[in-house]
Structure formats: structure tokens, C-alpha cells
């Protein structure tokens, strides 16, 4: 079937290029689809098809070889990746994304390393201009004819540094969210910035040296290690509350490093897909940071949470008052006789896997004619949209989910706000206390409602490490306990009323 003619056509540069172009179109169409709830599933699948086409096109490159090893690598990836993606709990989604992002960065760093092992001896030599034009995909022929252009070395070294930072940074982010590592900032104190700077300069210096023609693999490995230390040093001091922004930032980094790999390998598919991710990741990072009223530089500077706790403790002195604690039975009565209840879910609900219990609770309320809605803060649950995913999993109707801007005006005519495991996003200090570290952050104005019930494990401050004035408000009552069991208890009490 595969006559020489057909083979040569399928393996021609033009045909491979055309396949790549089809893949780009599918990536872009897929991302467009991801912009609406009704088209998102299709969008994701379209992008996946684009990816499959890009992979097949690459395998058609005539110089391709080592098929057994390629099959081994892909098989390993499938065996690890598919079960991980299938079995992860919805609540563990942020760290799963961090992990997948990390391996992407790791792949970039390893690819740059192999490139250096193959071509590093030509870095820094005088470029033989014409040899590079031996075909976009047949780069290896250069090895025999002369040197690589300097820009190839630059992009390759850039990809190595960024990929290594992304790999280690993502792993630390995973460790923090998975609670393998403590979520609080781990910092060297005032010296942290200096250390980060020194590491960055060292990595860059090694990179420049390599581009200039230091044919030393040890130096390259040293650069990867310094970049790895930098990834650790940058992410370890960042508090858990900022972690989604960090993951998003590292996601953008990995995209950029993939694009750089594409520039070095002269492969348009890598350039386009990597750059689109780089651009979109940057936008997403910025949106998340804005929603938390944090700037990206101050997040990367780290230490938030540590310093915040001190400031919060000072602030708490002023607001210290009595905290009213309540029981599930009292809470049930309060809810049963309300006409409007707004549920404010937060990370605590996600951690306790309480979304189904909460849904049962609200079903019980609806059966009694109580009007129920859910107010979702943009960064509730650590990542924008995370809370919607969890509630959708629990079959909460889409139209009961209210975004912050729609929810806030309605708190004034709400009888009971039921805050479940949410903390910082309800803290009135963001509106009233200019000295607070979260001052200016948009919040859900829960304090406007006629009464508030807060389900919370303890009085410990949240991830940002700040006391919440709301808990000292006379109209607030606290129901201490695990979100899931507390919600179930209230439901049981309601059923018995």
C-alpha cells in the first residue's frame, strides 16, 4: 500500500507542515470552545485531537528513529498519566494540575539537556549560515556540516532554565497543596530575596557561558541544578493561599519554555502551542491575582501569611470580642424559618468533601420553601471555578450558583448566610481595615445579611493567616466542626423538625 511515492508524500515537509497547521487550528478552536460552559467539553476534545495530529505529524518526519524507545516512553506516560487523571478527587484538582505542569517543565529541561549533549559542542562557534537551511525538521544534518546558529543555543539554554524552575516549583506547589509540605511560608527571612537573586544570576551566568562556547556538560548540569534550587527557593516561601496563582504562573512559564524549545528545534507546532499557553497562562495568572487583590511581584516576593499573621494578630486585638457558638439543632431552626438562605462555600467545604452533604442540606431547605442560592467568590477553593466544579459534581443546579458581583447586592435581603469553610473571602477587614494585608480584596459581603452561621473546624485563622472580624460580629454564630458532619447533622435536625 505504501508505494515509495505515497511514502515520500506523507513524509514531505509540506505535508507535515499542513498537518501542523490543522493542529493549530484545532488548538485555537478548542480554546475558543473552552470559553463557554456548553461548548467547553467539545473544545477540550477538539484540542486533544489537534494534539494527536501534531504527534502523528512529528512521527512522520523522515529522520525519525528509535521507535522502540519512543513506544516505551509513551507507554510509560500513559500507564502513569491515565490512572492518575481518572482517580484524582475533584478536591485534589489544583495539585494535580501542578503535577502535570511540573512534568511538562521537566520534559523541557531534559530535552534541552539532550540537545546540549548532541549539539553543545557547536555552541559558540562561528555560525555557518546556510547549513541550517537543510530543512526545518532535519536538524541533525547540521551536526555533520557545521555549527548551530547562536540563537538556537540561547533558546535552548532559556528552555533548560525555565523548564527546571517550573518542574521544581510545581513539585513544591504540589507538596504544599497535598499537605506533604507545610502550607505556611518557609522562608529564609530577609536573606530570601538575596538568595533568589544570587541563584538567578548564577543560572544566567552559566547560561551565557554555555552560549558563548563553554563546552562543558558539567556546567550545563550545574545550571540545571541552580535553576532547580531557584524553583524551590521561589515557591517555598509562598503561602498556601497564593498557590493557585503560582501554579498558573508556572503553567505560563512551561508554555514559554516549550515555545523556546520550538525556536531551538525550528518546530512551528511547539512554537505556536507553547506561546498560546504562555500568553493565556499570563492572563489567567493576572486575573487570579487581581481577584485576590495581590500583585504578582508581591506574591513571588513571598512570605505572605507569615507577615500577615503578625499584622492580623495586632488587628485582632481591637476586634477581640465574644464569639457566639451554636449547635446543629439551633442552626437547623434558624435555617428552617428563614425565607432566603445564601450558602457561601470555601476551601474547608472542599477539603471535607462536604459538597454532597451540603447539597442534601439545601434540598431539605428547598423542600420547606426556603429560597437557596450559592455565592461563589472568584478564588473560592483556591482556584477560579474550582468551587463550581465541586458543586456541579454534587448536582447543584447551575442557576443557583451566583458570582460575587451578582451575589453581593442580595446579602441585604438574605435572612441567613451559611458560611461553610470559607474565611478570608468573607472578612470585612478587606473593606474596613486599611492596615489589613487583605485590605482592598473584593469579598462576599456576608456581614450585610441579617444573620450569619459559620461552619468551621476551629478559630484558627485561614490560609492568609488573618483573624476574621466576621466571627466577632454579634449576629454571627459559629458552628464548630468538620463541614461534612456539621452539614449532615443540620440536615438530620431539619428532618426531625
Amino acid at each position, binding site marked *: 500500500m505504501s508505494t515509495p511515492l505515497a511514502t515520500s508524500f506523507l513524509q514531505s515537509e509540506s505535508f507535515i507542515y499542513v498537518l501542523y497547521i490543522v493542529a493549530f487550528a484545532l488548538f485555537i478552536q478548542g480554546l475558543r470552545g473552552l470559553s463557554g460552559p456548553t461548548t467547553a467539553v467539545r473544545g*477540550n476534545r477538539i484540542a486533544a485531537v489537534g494534539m494527536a495530529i501534531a504527534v502523528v505529524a512529528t512521527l512522520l*518526519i523522515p529522520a525519525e528513529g528509535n521507535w522502540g524507545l519512543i513506544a516505551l516512553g509513551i507507554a510509560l*506516560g500513559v500507564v502513569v498519566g491515565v490512572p492518575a*487523571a481518572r482517580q484524582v478527587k475533584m478536591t485534589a484538582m*489544583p495539585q494535580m494540575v501542578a503535577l502535570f505542569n511540573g512534568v511538562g517543565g521537566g520534559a523541557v529541561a531534559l530535552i534541552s539537556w539532550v540537545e546540549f*549533549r548532541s549539539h553543545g559542542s557547536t555552541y559558540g562557534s562561528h555560525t555557518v549560515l546556510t547549513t541550517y537551511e537543510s530543512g526545518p525538521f532535519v536538524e541533525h544534518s547540521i551536526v555533520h556540516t557545521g555549527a548551530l546558529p547562536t540563537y538556537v543555543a540561547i533558546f535552548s539554554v532559556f528552555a533548560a532554565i525555565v523548564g527546571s524552575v517550573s518542574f521544581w516549583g510545581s513539585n513544591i506547589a504540589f507538596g504544599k497543596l497535598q499537605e506533604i509540605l507545610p502550607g505556611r511560608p518557609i522562608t529564609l527571612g530577609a536573606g530570601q530575596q538575596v538568595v533568589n537573586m544570587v541563584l538567578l544570576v548564577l543560572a544566567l551566568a552559566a547560561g551565557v557561558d554555555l552560549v558563548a562556547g563553554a563546552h562543558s556538560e558539567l556546567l550545563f548540569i550545574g545550571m540545571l541544578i541552580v535553576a532547580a534550587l531557584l524553583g524551590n527557593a521561589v515557591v517555598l516561601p509562598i503561602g498556601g493561599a497564593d498557590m493557585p496563582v503560582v501554579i498558573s504562573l508556572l503553567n505560563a512559564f512551561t508554555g514559554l519554555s516549550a515555545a523556546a524549545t520550538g525556536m531551538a528545534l525550528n518546530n512551528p507546532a511547539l512554537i505556536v502551542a507553547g506561546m498560546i499557553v504562555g500568553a*493565556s497562562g499570563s492572563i489567567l495568572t493576572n486575573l487570579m491575582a487581581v481577584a485576590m487583590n495581590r500583585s504578582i511581584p508581591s506574591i513571588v516576593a513571598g512570605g505572605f501569611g507569615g507577615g500577615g499573621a503578625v499584622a492580623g494578630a495586632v488587628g485582632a486585638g481591637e476586634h477581640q470580642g465574644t464569639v457566639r457558638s451554636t449547635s446543629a439543632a439551633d442552626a437547623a431552626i434558624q435555617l428552617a424559618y428563614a425565607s432566603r438562605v445564601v450558602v457561601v462555600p470555601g476551601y474547608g467545604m472542599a477539603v471535607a468533601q462536604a459538597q454532597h452533604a451540603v447539597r442534601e442540606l439545601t434540598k431539605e431547605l428547598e423542600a420547606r420553601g426556603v429560597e437557596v442560592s450559592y455565592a461563589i467568590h472568584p478564588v473560592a477553593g483556591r482556584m477560579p*471555578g474550582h468551587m463550581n466544579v465541586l458543586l456541579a459534581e454534587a448536582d447543584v443546579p447551575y442557576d443557583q450558583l451566583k458570582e460575587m458581583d451578582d451575589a453581593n447586592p442580595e446579602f441585604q435581603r438574605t435572612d441567613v448566610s451559611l458560611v461553610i469553610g470559607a474565611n478570608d473571602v468573607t472578612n470585612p477587614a478587606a473593606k474596613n481595615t486599611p492596615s489589613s494585608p487583605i485590605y482592598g480584596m473584593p469579598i462576599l459581603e456576608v456581614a450585610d445579611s441579617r444573620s450569619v452561621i459559620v461552619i468551621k473546624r476551629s478559630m484558627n485563622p485561614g490560609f492568609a493567616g488573618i483573624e476574621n472580624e466576621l466571627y466577632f460580629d454579634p449576629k454571627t454564630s459559629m458552628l464548630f466542626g468538620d463541614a461534612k458532619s456539621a452539614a449532615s447533622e443540620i440536615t438530620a435536625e431539619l428532618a426531625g423538625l
Partner: protein
Amino acid sequence: MILASVLTTNLAILVLAGFIGFVVISKVPNTLHTPLMSGTNAIHGIVLLGGLILFGFGDLDAFSKVLLVIAVAFGTINIVGGFLVTDRMLDMFKSRPKPRASEQDGQSGSDGKGNS
């Protein structure tokens, strides 16, 4: 001069792709940001292609091959894991907007399960 054309063509692709990324993404509603992050995360798994291309190099020693197998495995995890996870997340949104109208059968079936 020919070299300049390779570099500048690729730079042009790079810049345009960046703009497309900005334009396409800036329209996504808040609620879809997590799936979007996961989806773009899957797309940068395209680094897999880098590993595949390098496997075509004739001058790989054993250690390079080991590194590349790991790189290809990492890239594959990134791709299949990323798309699968995104699909799982989005599946939860799918039936939400109009659950009763279009999927009467599936809906009542799952309701029955949920109540039992």
C-alpha cells in the same frame, strides 16, 4: 540571509501565537478558569514533540536515550493526564444548563440512583 528568514519567520509565528493566546483567552468566564488552566496545561504537553524529534538524531548515546525516554514519558503524562482531567471537570458542567429538556432519560435514571 536565509538563516535570518528561518529565525524571523519563527519569531513572527511566536509573536502572532502570543496575540492569539491573549485574544482567545481573555473572553473566558470566571467559572471556567480552572478547566481552562487544566486545558492549556495539557496543550503545553506538546513538548513531547521535542523529545520525538530528538529521537531522530543519529548521534544519541545511551544516557541521552534514557533522558529522552523520561522526557517522552513526562510529555505524555502531561498530555493524556491534562486532557483527561479537564474532560472530567467539564463533564460536570455539561448536563447543568438544561438538564431536563434534552436528556430526560439519563436524568431520571441518575435521579433514581441518587435517591435509593
